[in-house]
């Protein structure tokens, strides 16, 4: 049935849970495999790109991950969700692949959520947020900022980008994100906060223009 989410038609099969796909996969259903790959592909590729230098290497990491998933599927015990398990394998492989070219993981910069110049000496808004929430509810106007939002996510520092992608684009729970990235809940929140705050700034600027 054509259930619609956020205006996008969702193929009925997309609504199978990972658990159902897992059962089908174990039963040798190739369609289930393709569906699972499609469902997670863009997240996996974008995650991998945070660790390796090129699109080609990232694609290899994604392929290697799926092979590892297939090889391990009979032993998968379901202690984590299928998605968490797959993404953990991906992150491990991407880290290994990116080891030689690894950028140093800098301590998260202490960038504030809002430019300090927008507050007065007492910490109250001097230049309050431009109002745009109503405009964001207008689908056409929202569509106009989507491309900018997508590129803004790409420009976030790696760890922030990972957390935003997993939480807000792909809809993982905070627990799943911590498990996939091996970070604490507190760290996850800091990264999410910085990433979301930056995206809000971008949207404020963009809605001021459309």
């Amino acid at each position, binding site marked *: 049935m054509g259930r619609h989410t956020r205006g996008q038609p969702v193929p009925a099969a997309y609504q199978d849970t990972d658990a159902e796909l897992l059962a089908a996969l174990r039963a040798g259903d190739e369609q289930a495999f393709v569906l699972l790959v499609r469902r997670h592909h863009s997240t996996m590729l974008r995650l991998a790109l945070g660790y390796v230098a090129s699109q080609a290497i990232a694609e290899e990491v994604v392929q290697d991950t799926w*092979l590892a998933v*297939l090889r391990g599927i009979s032993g998968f015990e379901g202690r984590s969700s299928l998605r968490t398990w797959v993404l953990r394998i991906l992150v491990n492989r991407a880290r290994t692949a990116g080891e030689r070219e690894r950028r140093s993981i800098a301590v998260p910069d202490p960038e504030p959520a809002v430019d300090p110049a927008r507050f007065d000496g007492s910490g109250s808004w001097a230049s309050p*947020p431009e109002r745009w929430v109503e405009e964001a509810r207008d689908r056409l106007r929202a569509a106009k900022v989507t491309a900018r*939002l997508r590129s803004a996510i790409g420009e976030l520092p790696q760890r922030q980008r990972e957390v935003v992608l997993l939480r807000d684009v*792909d809809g993982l729970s905070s627990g799943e994100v911590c498990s996939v990235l091996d970070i604490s809940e507190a760290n996850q*929140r800091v990264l999410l906060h910085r990433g*979301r705050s930056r995206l809000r700034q971008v949207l404020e600027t963009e809605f001021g223009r459309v």
Partner: protein
Amino acid sequence: MRRLLLPRRRDLVCQQAVELVTDYLEGALSPADRRRFEAHLAGCPHCTEYLAQMRSTIELTGGIAAEDLPPQMRDDLTAVYRRWRAGGE
């Protein structure tokens, strides 16, 4: 839970409130900090707007369609699957 770096019982100012938005949305504030945050919002339309914007940001981010699998990649992965099924990998 993140403790605020300011004396207790003092009112929050806007610049502090905006840094608490994510912890608030994540349910990670202590009950006392949550009350102070909500008390600030009740008297501050700008921070109320700011919180609404953060919610809107999350919603717009969630609406970004996943890029679909390129056909070449789908073919490659289907081949991986078939080799695995055939016992070759």
